[in-house]
């Protein structure tokens, strides 16, 4: 599969603080790639740099062979990259319909394509069709997350950036959201997924990167990462700890 996005030695600074210190990653067309890491590791910064919301201090972001550095956010959407931001960020005093229509703002001259995109979003999230006239702020947390993802799909992106889609959702909803993420990917949209829920993310992604304090520490296929003991201990909260308890050893904090 051809390369869709390549990030090379990306540095991002906020004042004196270096949020990303030379991150390099790539994503092939059709892939789901997960970026895992703790709070404050720089995951959202990474997505916001791709979307053009934060300026790149050093390094390159290449999307389909064209640089994204210093291109304003609205142009990047037009090029085929859209983001569902952390914390959903739906426009609360606008209706569900208006939120979705704004998602297709760059496609507003293509009325038929927009109608098709909306039909697809309603198929993925039938609840949004039911509530299309409601103000987005009156939706439940799970519905708002669906709206945020649906809104990002309205521009029919080649690359969808998902920032913590499972944040704050009940476990049953988390499962549903991930099933839908898989479905979106099956329909041909590549996905760069930022998550704290490492277990879920790795069971749907093909590859993953671990971001720690602004640098990538480990990368590999999802299967490799899942079987990596360090990752199990730090991010999957899993078997490594249980094993040690079995032998009477006290677990070290990650």
């Amino acid at each position, binding site marked *: 599969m051809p390369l869709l996005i390549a990030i090379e030695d990306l540095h991002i600074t906020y004042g004196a603080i270096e949020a990303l210190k030379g991150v390099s990653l790539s994503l092939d067309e059709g892939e789901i790639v997960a970026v895992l890491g703790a709070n404050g590791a720089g995951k959202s910064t990474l997505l916001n740099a791709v*979307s*053009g*919301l934060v300026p790149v201090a050093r390094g390159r972001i290449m999307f389909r062979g064209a640089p994204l550095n210093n291109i*304003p*956010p*609205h142009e990047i*959407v*037009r090029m085929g990259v*859209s*983001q569902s*931001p952390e*914390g959903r*960020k739906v*426009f*609360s*005093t*606008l209706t569900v319909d*208006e939120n979705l*229509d*704004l*998602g297709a*703002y*760059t496609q*507003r001259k293509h009325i038929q394509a927009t109608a098709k995109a909306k039909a697809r979003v309603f198929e993925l999230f039938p609840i949004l069709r039911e509530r299309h006239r409601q*103000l987005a*702020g*009156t*939706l*439940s*947390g799970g519905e*708002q997350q669906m709206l945020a993802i649906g*809104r*990002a799909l309205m*521009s029919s992106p080649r690359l969808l950036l998902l920032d913590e889609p499972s944040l*704050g959702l009940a476990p049953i909803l988390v499962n549903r959201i991930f099933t839908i993420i898989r479905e979106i990917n099956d329909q041909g949209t590549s996905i760069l997924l930022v998550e704290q829920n490492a277990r879920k993310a790795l069971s749907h992604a093909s590859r993953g990167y671990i971001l720690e304090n602004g640098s990538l520490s480990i990368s590999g296929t999802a299967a490799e990462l899942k079987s990596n003991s360090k990752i199990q201990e730090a991010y999957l909260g899993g078997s490594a700890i249980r094993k040690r308890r079995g032998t009477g050893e006290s677990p070290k904090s990650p």
Partner: protein
Amino acid sequence: MRVAVEQIINGLTIGSFYALIALGYSMVYGILKLINFVHGDFFTLGSYLGYTILIFAAAFITAHFGLWGGIVCAMLVAALCLALTGLVVERIAYRPIYPAGRLPAVVSALGASIVLQNAIMVIWGPRYQAYPAPMIPNLHLLFFGINITLLQVVILVFSFVLMGILYYIIQKTLFGASVRAMALDRDTASLMGIDFNRVILFIFTLGPALGAVTGVMVGMYYRQISFTMGWNYGLKAFTATILGGIGNIPGAMFGGLLLGVLEMLGAAYISAAWKDVFVFIILILVLIFRPTGIFGETTAEKV
């Protein structure tokens, strides 16, 4: 009863002035969270430009297009010039200091206001100027014993049409939704592909243009204009904005109309000298019981 109805009509007339000016404040506040103090002076400059057109060019225009042709021409020229002025002020006074935050921008707005006000004084002089009487229709109408002027009817109808158009653009079109989205959350709106500069272009041309048209209407209504009148109207319009809920377009319209009516009823039944006090007491009461204004945000954000 007759007095009350007449005062309400008078109140709606000046209320529509406040409302049209308030829209400019509210749009800028909505997007930039900036109190655009220069907006009152946009209104004054529009009024003076309309005055100049009526004094110098109206005889010619009126001869060809009639009385209303002259007025329409004065309004159009004032609106176009102020749309341009609005863009220039945004470029010079605001754009370079956006990264510095909100407070420096407010100081810059005050500075721009002083510059514009003094420029008007230098160009047209410090004395009151009078709109030329023959250029303004002067016809009294009687409806069921209620006395109103043709000019009032025209002002009311025209203001409501303008407000209706703006309401439609902001509330019913995709572009309007993009402006409201930008007001709610600039970063997320950018992620939708909305261009911040397009929205800025819109609010800094339309707001001043509406102010300019209002300036011409105020000139025709009161006949007398002064270079400092932007402060007073600006303050009232800003009050109207807060009354209706700042950043809220229907709120600004409603707040302006309500303020005008309250002011005129206060002047008629309490004391003309105390009408401003009356207005501000109402404002304080509204803010005590509804701190976000009458139409202010009530939908809580879900976390």
